[in-house]
């Protein structure tokens, strides 16, 4: 198994003689994500870099908190992810796990985290079930979820006249959740869902499925997939003249790294929803600049930004509680408002949902872009209340 573990961020703490606090707290955080597959660029090593930046910005060493970061590759497989999670909690003394893209893996890790009474701050996965029927007192879902994506992109497309939909759905937990949540938004707004096709994950050739979508004559083809699946479907849709034929594509989960891989020529005009874009304001630009220097020039995705923001809030809670006991820290995290330069001010709901604004973007035309990574123009801002599922509807057992 290619379980790669790298240690970092402890050096500072060790070098400086820890002052002040009588008792030093040491925390071990595990960044668990895809380091070699289709989601490696949107999470991967970049998320580890983001975690290190959080430790640096928190000035953990000065505050008497020793932070160690480890990482591993779950290969987008729930069994691999579960094995690593158990080993981390049982043998390696890991206190919290960060990131975990791929919903099927995230649901498994969330369950184990609950059983072992540790903490999961999920940034990478999409399924809204993490704070819905599969919610857990030990899990916080940080960056985005399928419900918010459906509200953002789905809502905007229906409003623009796209009232009949056909879905290309990645055949696993995330795709199913995204299709379900978007269908709900479309039908609620008076639109119709004409059909869906479940595509094996991960896939390469989507032309067959795209032709089925074309034959459905739906106005909008909803792409309920992500990463390499999404880039391949967008590329092939343009090749088969689907977009030129008047049908619109909705890339329900599109990351900046996907747009980078597609190139603006193929991606232009896509409407998408994100909670973070590097070029939004001075705060995000300054942080992204630092990040890109450490990440071979690549700008951060919202998933990587979420890892930073989540770990920062966790460390603040540990400092305030003067403890790393899971229940105490979780209570503190939900009690304290969140605040950082990347996501602004926010809160965490009782079901573990982190609340912040979501942004609706459109991908620029090649002529509008000033250079690499200048990709989005902002169309609208959805407040946390508008974007995320109302507590009463989540079906989460923690909501009374």
């Amino acid at each position, binding site marked *: 198994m290619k379980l790669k573990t790298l240690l970092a961020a402890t050096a500072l703490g060790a070098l400086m003689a820890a002052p002040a606090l009588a008792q030093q707290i040491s925390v071990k955080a595990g960044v668990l994500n895809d380091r070699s597959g289709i989601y490696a660029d949107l999470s991967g090593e970049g998320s580890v870099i983001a975690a290190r930046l959080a430790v640096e910005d928190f000035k953990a060493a000065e505050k008497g908190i020793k932070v160690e970061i480890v990482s591993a590759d779950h290969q987008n497989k729930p069994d691999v992810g579960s094995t690593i999670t158990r080993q981390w909690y049982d043998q390696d003394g890991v206190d919290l796990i960060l990131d975990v893209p791929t919903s099927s893996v995230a649901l498994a890790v969330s369950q184990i985290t609950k059983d072992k009474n540790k903490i999961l701050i999920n940034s990478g996965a999409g399924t809204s079930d993490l704070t819905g029927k599969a919610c857990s007192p030990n899990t916080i879902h940080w960056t985005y979820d399928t419900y918010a994506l459906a509200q953002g992109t789905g809502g905007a497309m229906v409003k623009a006249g796209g009232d009949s939909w056909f879905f290309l759905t990645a*055949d696993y937990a995330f795709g199913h959740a995204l299709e379900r949540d978007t269908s709900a938004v479309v039908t609620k707004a008076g639109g119709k869902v004409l059909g869906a096709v479940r595509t094996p994950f991960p896939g390469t050739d989507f*032309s067959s*499925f795209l032709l089925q979508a074309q034959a459905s004559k739906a106005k909008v083809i909803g792409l309920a997939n992500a990463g390499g699946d999404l880039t391949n479907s967008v590329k092939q849709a343009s090749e*088969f003249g689907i977009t030129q034929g008047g049908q619109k594509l909705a890339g329900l989960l599109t990351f900046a790294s996907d747009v980078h891989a597609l190139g603006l020529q193929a991606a232009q005009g896509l409407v998408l929803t994100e909670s973070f874009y590097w070029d939004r304001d001075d705060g995000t630009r300054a942080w992204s600049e630092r990040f890109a220097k450490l990440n071979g020039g690549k700008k951060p995705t919202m998933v990587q930004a979420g890892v930073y923001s989540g770990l920062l809030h966790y460390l603040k809670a540990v400092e305030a509680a003067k403890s790393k006991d899971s229940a105490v820290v979780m209570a503190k995290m939900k009690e304290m408002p969140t605040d950082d330069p990347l996501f602004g001010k926010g809160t965490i709901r009782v079901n573990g949902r982190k609340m912040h604004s979501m942004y609706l973007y459109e991908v620029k035309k090649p002529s509008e872009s000033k250079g690499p990574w200048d990709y989005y123009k902002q169309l609208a801002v959805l407040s946390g209340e508008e974007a995320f599922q109302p507590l009463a509807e989540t079906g989460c057992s923690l909501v009374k």
Partner: protein
Amino acid sequence: MFELLGVPPQALFGQVLLGLINGSFYAILSLGLAVIFGLLNIINFAHGAQYMMGAFVAWMCLNYLGINYWAALVVAPILVGATGIVIERLLLARIAKYDHLYGLLLTFGLALIIQGLFRNYYGSSGLPYGIPPQLTGGQNLGFMFLPTYRGWVVVASLIVCLATWFMIEKTKLGSYLRAATENPTLTQAFGINVPLLVTLTYGFGVALAAFAGVLAAPIYAVNPNMGADLIIVVFAVVVIGGMGSIMGAIVTGFSLGLIEGLTKVFYPEASSTVIFIIMVLVLLVKPAGLFGRAA
């Protein structure tokens, strides 16, 4: 309108054609594997990585050297084929006398190293590579819109496959190759340089993979994992066709593409497994494969 299991015939024609297009890639790749296995008795697990290298070399040619698609179609197979020759001389030749499990392990290791290197430098989400301007657009065939480039893929792959078959089965060089496969010692005794033949064959098989890679670059993202995703399917194709059979590899490549394409219409969830189900069935009935001779 007449419908077959709820699918209109027009849609069906479209899907059959798409299946053939995907089958073209299976055919070229499994052909390369079959050629290599036939002569070297090596199960070349690096084939997927070499296919990926073909696509990457095409991308590098365009972005670093300004060499266009048409030139890359020739340059990339030559360059990647040359790396194949180096690999054969430096590594494979040394283990030729052992069981072919060693060759499989060696090439599998090589594939992991090559993929890892590319992932390290270029990331995993892929690089954009445009369709050459002469082949953009498409034809409306009435039942479907056929992108010109996909049509070209089928034609190019058919030409390459048939030329390879002709060369091996009908020319003098081919007869040397077949003789060397049958009995290397005796062939060498007739004054034919068998080690050279072996090296060139490996280089040629690898070049075929790279050619498929260049063909694939404009339609699939150029990405370090592109070969790994495909190679397992291609191995199944070779096994179904019969290890080492040239025509078997070509025919099964196209027909399995077709079957996979139809599965995507009738039961999409199974489209990634249907080839393996067929493999199991074929192995139960004809253990040597459809076109293979029993050992």
